C-alpha cells in the first residue's frame, strides 16, 4: 500500500468508517501477529496484544499526525505492549496461556513442508530450525527485536529505525551484530551434541 492510499485510509478511519478500519486490519494484522507470536512465544497472548494494539490506535488516532509514519507508529505500539507484557511476565513468571518456546516452535516446524525428497531431510531441516530458534532466544533483547521486526514484521530497516526511534546506522549495526551472533550460536549448537 503506497503512502497516499494509506493516508487516505487513515483519514477514513479517523472519520469512523468501519469499512476503512476493516481494510486497515486486513492490511496489517498478519505482520503484527507474526511479530507478536515470535516475541511473546504465545499464540493466545499475541492475539490479545494485536487486538490491544488496534484498540489503542482507535483511541489515539484522533491525536495522530500523519507524517508518513503510520506503520512505524503502529508497530511501536505493539513493541511497547510486548515489552510491558514481558516486564510484567518477569515479575509474575507463572502465566496461564503461555506456550513454551519449544512447544511453539516444534508445532511450527512440524507443520512445515519438507524441502527435500530425502527421508532425512525434513528431520534435518527441523533440527536446523530448532537450533535457529534456540539461538534467537539467546540474543540480547534489542538485537533480537530488530531481527524479529525485520523478518516477522516484514519491516524495512528504515521503518524499524523509525519504530525504535533510533538512527538507521544503529539499527543496521544491531542487525549485523545479531546475525553474526546467530551464526556463532548456530555453529556452537550444531557442535554441542556431537
Amino acid at each position, binding site marked *: 500500500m503506497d503512502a497516499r492510499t494509506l493516508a487516505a485510509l487513515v483519514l477514513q478511519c479517523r472519520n469512523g468508517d468501519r469499512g476503512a478500519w476493516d481494510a486497515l486490519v486486513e492490511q496489517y*494484522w498478519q505482520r503484527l*501477529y*507474526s511479530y507478536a507470536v515470535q516475541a511473546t512465544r504465545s499464540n493466545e497472548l499475541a492475539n490479545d496484544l494485536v487486538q490491544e494494539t488496534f*484498540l489503542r490506535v482507535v483511541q489515539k488516532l484522533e491525536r495522530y499526525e500523519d507524517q508518513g509514519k503510520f506503520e512505524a507508529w503502529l508497530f511501536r505500539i505493539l513493541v511497547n505492549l510486548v515489552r510491558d507484557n514481558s516486564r510484567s511476565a518477569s515479575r509474575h513468571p507463572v502465566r496461564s496461556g503461555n506456550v513454551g518456546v519449544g512447544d511453539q516452535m516444534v508445532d511450527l516446524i512440524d507443520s512445515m513442508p519438507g524441502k527435500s525428497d530425502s527421508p532425512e531431510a525434513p528431520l534435518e531441516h527441523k533440527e536446523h530450525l530448532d537450533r535457529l530458534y534456540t539461538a534467537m532466544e539467546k540474543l540480547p533483547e534489542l538485537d533480537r527485536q530488530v531481527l524479529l521486526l525485520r523478518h516477522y514484521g516484514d519491516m*524495512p530497516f528504515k521503518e524499524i529505525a523509525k519504530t525504535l526511534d533510533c538512527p538507521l*546506522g544503529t539499527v*543496521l549495526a544491531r542487525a549485523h551484530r545479531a546475525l553474526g551472533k*546467530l551464526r556463532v550460536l548456530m555453529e556452537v549448537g550444531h557442535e554441542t551434541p556431537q
Partner: protein
Amino acid sequence: MKRPNKHLSLSQTCLLDVSGELGPKAREHLQQHVATYPAAHLEYELVRGRFAMLQSLPKIEDQLDQVSKARIAANIKKGIHQSLDQQRKAQRQAKLARVFYGFMAAASGVAAALVVAAGVYIVHERQLAHRQRIIDAENTFQEVAQTQLPGEGKSRVDTLARRISRLEQSGGISAEGNVGNSHMMNLLDALDSVHATDSVPAPGDSGY
C-alpha cells in the same frame, strides 16, 4: 572508489542491499565496489549468507489455515467495532452533558438575577413607604401648627400621635443616622409645642 553510502559502513550497506532497501544508484556503486575489492566481496557474501539464514525462518501467517486467519481477523475487527461504538456513545453522552450543564448554568443565572431584582424591588418599596409616612407626618404637623382651634388641634395631635406610633413600630426612631430620625426629632419638638399651645390660653382667651 567512492563508497556507496558515506554514513554507513560496508557491512551495513551490504545488509541494506540484501534486504532490498538500497536504491538503484547506491546498489550500482556497491556492486562495483564489491567486484573491485575481494575483501568487500567476501564481506558481501558473509552478510548475504547470514541474512538468508534469517529468511529461512518460517513465518507464522504461512502456517495458519484460512479458517484461523479469518477467525483472528474477525476477532480484531469485532473488538474495533465495539470500541468505535463505545467511543460514539461516550461522545454523545459528553455532548448531552455539555448541553445540560450549559442549560443549568443559564437557568441558575436567570434565577439569581430574579432573586436580586426582587430583593432590590422590595427594599425600594419599603424605602418609598417609609418616606411617604414621614411626609404624611410632616404634613399633619404643618396642619396642626396652623390651626387655632383647641378641639381641632387635639384631634390633629391624636392623628399625629398615631402616625408617630406607626413610625416607632416601623423602626424609624431607633435607627441612628436614619433620614427619618431628624424628621422624628422635629416632630417630637412640634408635638411638645402643640401641647404647650393647647395648655397655655392665648391672651384674652378664658380657655372655656
